[in-house]
């Protein structure tokens, strides 16, 4: 009995001492709040940053881009995560893009269509156009491939085409980008959309899909960088003041070459920092 209690006492001591030493070391703390699109990427970046700087603890919380803006203004968060460009009324904040999010409409490579207008795509997805013949293709029914609720690509798609998800008449709903590309490669009359990063990666590996030009502009990572491709948005970190110290160090790290694999793994496009 006494042996047991001694052991438990030792165990408690060991746990508490490690707890305290942990608390002492983690004196530096960084809080980020905001967009749920940016949060998974920032979470990965934060984990890598923490492993390189053992004394730092980074807390990533979601709650939407507007929460990121508010928390940064109020000083609740050190850095806000915002999945869009800053509005004119938000110019009091400093924005640092860590990645670009762009989506491309894709069809099967055997589909003769190479470009569609914004209106045509909206009509196809809402079920007003149901045959490829209407937009100059072959006489076949269009299979509309949509994304599952909650995905950032869906959100960006709906926002750009000014649609609500309940207006879309899908035939297939997919989860992640690879599943979407597999679905399109198996169906010559399907149309869907995926992250540009994922689509370019798969076409380079020979997947029989075509990225459609949108309103005359080719969907490519190049056009995403130059900002001419319309169906895209920057993923920003924002701060209230010019960042210093830990905040500055983290933002520089989040925009560095080192995190590019993490950015690409989330199917975002890395930014070019000069």
């Amino acid at each position, binding site marked *: 009995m006494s042996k047991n209690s001694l052991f438990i006492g030792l165990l408690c001591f060991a746990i508490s001492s490690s707890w305290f030493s942990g608390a002492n070391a983690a004196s530096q703390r960084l809080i980020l709040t905001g967009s*749920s699109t940016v949060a998974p990427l920032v979470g990965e970046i934060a984990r890598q940053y923490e492993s390189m700087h053992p004394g730092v603890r980074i807390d990533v919380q*979601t709650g939407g881009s507007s929460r990121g803006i508010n928390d940064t203004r109020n000083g609740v968060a050190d850095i806000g995560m915002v999945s869009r460009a800053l509005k004119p009324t938000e110019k009091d904040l400093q924005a640092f893009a860590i990645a670009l999010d762009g989506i491309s409409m894709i069809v099967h490579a055997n589909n003769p269509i190479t470009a569609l207008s914004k209106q045509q795509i909206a009509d196809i997805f809402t079920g007003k156009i149901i045959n490829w013949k209407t937009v100059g293709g072959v006489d*076949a*029914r269009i*299979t509309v491939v949509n994304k*599952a*609720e*909650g*995905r*950032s690509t869906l959100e960006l798609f709906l926002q750009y085409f000014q649609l*609500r*998800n*309940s207006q879309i008449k*899908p*035939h*297939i*709903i*997919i*989860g992640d980008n690879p*599943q979407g590309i*597999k*679905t399109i490669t*198996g*169906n010559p*009359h*399907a149309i869907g959309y995926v992250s540009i990063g994922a689509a370019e990666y798969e076409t380079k590996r020979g997947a029989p899909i075509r990225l459609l030009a949108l309103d005359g502009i080719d969907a490519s990572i190049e056009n995403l960088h130059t900002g001419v491709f319309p169906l895209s948005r920057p993923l920003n970190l924002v701060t209230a003041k010019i960042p210093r110290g830990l905040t500055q160090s983290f933002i520089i790290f989040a925009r560095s070459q080192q995190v590019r694999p993490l950015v690409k793994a989330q199917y975002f496009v890395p930014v070019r920092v000069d």
Partner: protein
Amino acid sequence: MLIDTLTRWLLRAGAIVSALVMLLILAFLLIESWPVLDQITPTRFFTDTSWHPMEGAYNLMPMLSGTLLASVGALLLAIPLGIASALFIVFYAPIYFALPYKRLIELLAGIPSVVFGFWGLTTLVPLINQLHPPGASLLAAILVLTLMILPTITLTAYAALNAVPKEYLHGAAALGLSRWGMIYGVVFPAARSGIVAGIILAAGRAIGETMAVLMVAGNVVQHPEGLFDPIRTLAANIALEMAYAMGDHRAVLFVSGLLLMLLVMLLSAMAGKMENNQYA
């Protein structure tokens, strides 16, 4: 004596842990779905116009019907096929053929579900698409599920048929029954509970199967009007949306988990009732 006591306590501990895990899962599901259950009346899961959780519409019924239709369809195909294969192995196939055939079925049971899903997505769905677009459909889900539960039914039915005492067979032969007469009149009644248990097991697997169905069913939330319409199952719904769901959306996904759990509980209760009837 000591060993008896020890074994008794070990077994009790094991039983308590298994029961506790089950209760904990149920409690966890309830806690996670509470934010939504507390806020809205449960009838909305039946009466809302559609499933668009981001727009506050939470109708789960199309997914319940999708789950049931896919499972029942798969069972309708797999039960006769499975029992026929088991009969073939035990009573009809020559020994040099029966053994490799059984190994093959065992192999089929070991294939991971994602492989079935991948095959379905790249081969089966395009094939059905040529027949009737969009290809991803209730039919594709039924066919993939059939392949997945067929070995379960075959192997349990095989075990049950094999466990029928040889004396029964000898008795039947002595009475001059034909082979089919023996199977129908003697073997089936004796092996019934084992075969039914296998079917219940297979039904549970069909209802809960996620990845393979997610890849081939099309996942559109609707009551299907035919075999070629896409459906979404409750399990696929969770897998599809959980990764990016927050707040109420997340909670309502746990409600679909709860519904799935109730479905499986109902199934096992049914199985229990059937067993009771047999011995009554």
